[in-house]
């Protein structure tokens, strides 16, 4: 059959060539079309704790993080006490990742022979190109293990207990800078002087800044909200560095809080930076994979 539309055929041919040409150049557009799978922002902080306060980090599923922490005596004690090193207060803890977002922890401090049991839940994760912040909750029950001051009178176990609840807001601004804001509520079943507040709130903030892939500088500050509990308690300020070596994270710091559990460092910090009453200390974190990751 004789073609009645030769020009149309020509057009088709031209079209073929054009499409073929475009197809070549357009090959790389395949990578632009991807709806990048939304991923949570990871490694916001190097460790479960910034210095004293909990971060959004939890151990991965099946991971056991073993923490050994020391706070030495006052640096101002001078050469006689080797600037505090003669006198160490210790805390150890096991933190287990029930899932990638839920952590259970048990701890024990020499200070007031305190036991702790805590739960941390990463409720919301900061997402790449999505949610700009993360929200993590941490709740801990602390039990004073000291013998009763007066065993003769009627003592209740509940008197030993105190509780802390925290909402940990975190944001990783870039590879280097991560910031957290932590409002905390602390409840003490028993207060040392009748009439003092059982509930105390603090507002804390802190950041980490990476100075190399394996080193960060950290700072945190906790402000006792103006509902005076006792005049002698002060706001907690800590400065530190993290050094990561393989399966360990070493955290070295200087702080005016000697206690390492929430009630103590948030609401019972007796010392002040301006008086030079500081403590040198470290947290040592060692991670073991004990459970199945999947």
């Amino acid at each position, binding site marked *: 059959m004789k073609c*009645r539309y030769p020009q149309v055929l020509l057009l088709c041919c031209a079209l073929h060539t054009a499409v*073929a040409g475009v197809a*070549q150049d357009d*090959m790389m557009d395949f*990578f632009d079309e*991807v709806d990048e799978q939304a*991923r949570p922002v*990871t490694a916001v902080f190097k460790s479960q704790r910034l210095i004293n306060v909990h971060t959004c980090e939890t151990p*991965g599923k099946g991971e056991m993080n073993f923490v050994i922490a020391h706070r030495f005596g006052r640096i101002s004690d001078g050469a006689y006490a080797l600037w505090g090193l003669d006198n160490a207060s210790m805390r150890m803890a096991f933190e287990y990742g029930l899932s990638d977002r839920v952590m259970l922890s048990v701890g024990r401090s020499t200070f007031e022979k305190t036991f702790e049991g805590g739960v941390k839940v990463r409720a919301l994760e900061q997402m790449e190109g999505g949610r700009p912040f993360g929200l993590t909750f941490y709740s801990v029950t602390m039990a004073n293990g000291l013998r009763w001051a007066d065993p003769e009178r009627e003592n209740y176990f509940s008197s030993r207990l105190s509780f802390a609840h925290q909402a940990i807001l975190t944001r990783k601004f870039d590879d280097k800078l991560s910031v957290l804001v932590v409002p905390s509520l602390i409840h003490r079943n028993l207060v040392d002087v009748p009439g003092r507040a059982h509930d105390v709130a603090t507002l804390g903030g802190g950041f980490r800044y990476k100075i190399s892939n394996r080193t960060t500088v950290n700072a945190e500050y906790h402000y006792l909200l103006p509902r005076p509990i006792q005049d002698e308690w002060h706001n907690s300020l800590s400065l530190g560095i993290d050094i990561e070596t393989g399966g360990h994270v070493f955290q070295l710091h200087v702080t005016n809080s000697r206690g390492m559990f929430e009630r103590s460092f948030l609401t019972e910090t007796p010392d002040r930076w301006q008086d030079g009453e500081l403590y040198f200390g470290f947290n040592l974190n060692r*991670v073991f994979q004990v459970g199945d990751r999947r």
Partner: protein
Amino acid sequence: MKHILLLLAFLPSAIFAQQFVTREGNVHFLSETPMEDIEATSSEASVILDLETGRVAVQVPILSFHFEKALMEEHFNENYMESGTYPKAKFTGTLRDFGGLPESGAVEVMVDGSFEVHGVSVDRPFNGTLERKGDEVMLICRFDVRTEDHEIPIPAVVRDNIAEVIAVDIKATLVAR
């Protein structure tokens, strides 16, 4: 006649549907040392292969690699690959002396191209096989990557635990785009 014209008008897409793609390619790598073996897998490799031009391109998000231990994954991204700065491993290349793919049977192919990891590109050849299976094209490729070539520093303390040469496996099933 009209039908033929119609057919012709649509032919471009039919004739040139020579691009085969996937977004779920598997990439596995292994670092083998006497101290420990470290391996990771991603199933999020994007691959595009143009059987007409012989061009091929691959991209893998670094964050999509998963390890046996969560801590390994964190170190991989934070300390070695710096995935925040260099989020993807990329390859673009051209099949060498490629004369088309037979209807059945695997063919050995060589690809020359540019391979970028950790922000550092290396021009190098790769060996692989392509095989048409029905409507799909199977791609298999194994190669070694020297960490040094991509300026991925490995500190002395973990030198015994991380191999200098990492063995990579790619397996992908591509479908017509």
